[in-house]
């Protein structure tokens, strides 16, 4: 069984557990996915499974993509993503649905975080900025000193500065599955996941169990 899924983030809500406590939940429209390729250590040098998600009109894909899917009589799929898995016990054409994950399991969710553009150090690295009063109104969100003086006479590599923030691959690790609905292809995980509503996410078994 392939322990991986591609999905779309729907958004956050809350549901109640048996004790009546409200649990924050992110809902993901996950699957159905199809196994589109199996990579084997003997052939490709590593074990992985390529999954496809999101049926589209054939004209949305290039003829190369269509040919790759047509070989195994698969529908046209918009997203193809590879999952490094130890257990590649499946064959091309297999359908993967939300029921590969059970309630209570831990998963990692990979997404692309919301882009923040060119951000200053206060937003990007949670610097505290300067003081607001005593004539320092132009240093409220300033980074302060970036290094020492003549020794070393340079700024160390890796010093945190302003720059592009967000729009990067982010993994939310060890999230608990609290809802599995195979009828609506819905998966609910406790807590937040990266990315905007409608963003593509990958769901994997948690690395740190």
């Amino acid at each position: 069984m392939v322990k991986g899924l591609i999905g779309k983030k729907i958004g956050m809500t809350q549901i109640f557990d048996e004790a009546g406590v409200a649990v924050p939940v992110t809902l993901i429209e996950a699957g159905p996915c199809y196994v589109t390729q199996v990579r084997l250590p003997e052939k490709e040098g590593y074990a992985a499974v390529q999954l496809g998600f999101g049926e589209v009109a054939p004209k949305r894909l290039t003829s190369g993509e269509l040919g790759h899917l047509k070989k195994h009589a698969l529908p046209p799929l918009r997203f193809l993503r590879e999952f490094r898995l130890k257990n590649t016990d499946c064959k091309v054409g297999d359908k993967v649905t939300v029921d590969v994950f059970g309630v209570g399991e831990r998963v990692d969710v990979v997404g692309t975080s919301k882009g923040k553009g060119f951000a200053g150090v206060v937003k990007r690295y949670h610097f505290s900025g300067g003081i607001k009063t005593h004539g320092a109104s132009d240093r409220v969100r300033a980074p302060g000193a970036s290094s020492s003086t003549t020794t070393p006479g340079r700024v160390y590599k890796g010093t945190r500065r302003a720059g592009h923030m967000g729009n990067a691959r982010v993994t939310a690790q060890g999230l608990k599955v609290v809802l599995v609905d195979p009828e609506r292809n819905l998966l609910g995980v406790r807590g937040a996941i990266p990315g905007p509503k409608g963003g593509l996410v990958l769901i994997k078994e948690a690395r740190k169990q």
Partner: protein
Amino acid sequence: MIDLNKNFGTEINPNIPELRPGDTVSVHVRIKEGGRERIQEFKGMVIRLRKGGNNANFTVRRTASNGIGVERTFLMHSPRIDKVVVERHARVRRAQLYFLRGRTGKRATLKQKFD
């Protein structure tokens, strides 16, 4: 994409009747203390109702001792609400009765509506 405001998993608590702003209600909440479960009553006036799918809630305001106002928000979908008793309706002209916060005593009462 699936509509988030539709309910997922939980239905609105059947013990909650239709509420309106200005209603004087008594909310019975199940509270777990150690192994025991008991019911706590909270009596006051509904000052706002909020929609929003699973997050729908309502706020009840009551005046505790020494005239200190206490507001408590309850989730419409919470299974912990044992029952809600509507004791009276009031004539109100707005949806959120925040103006009651600045009032005490007789000025904080509303005209009763019979129906």
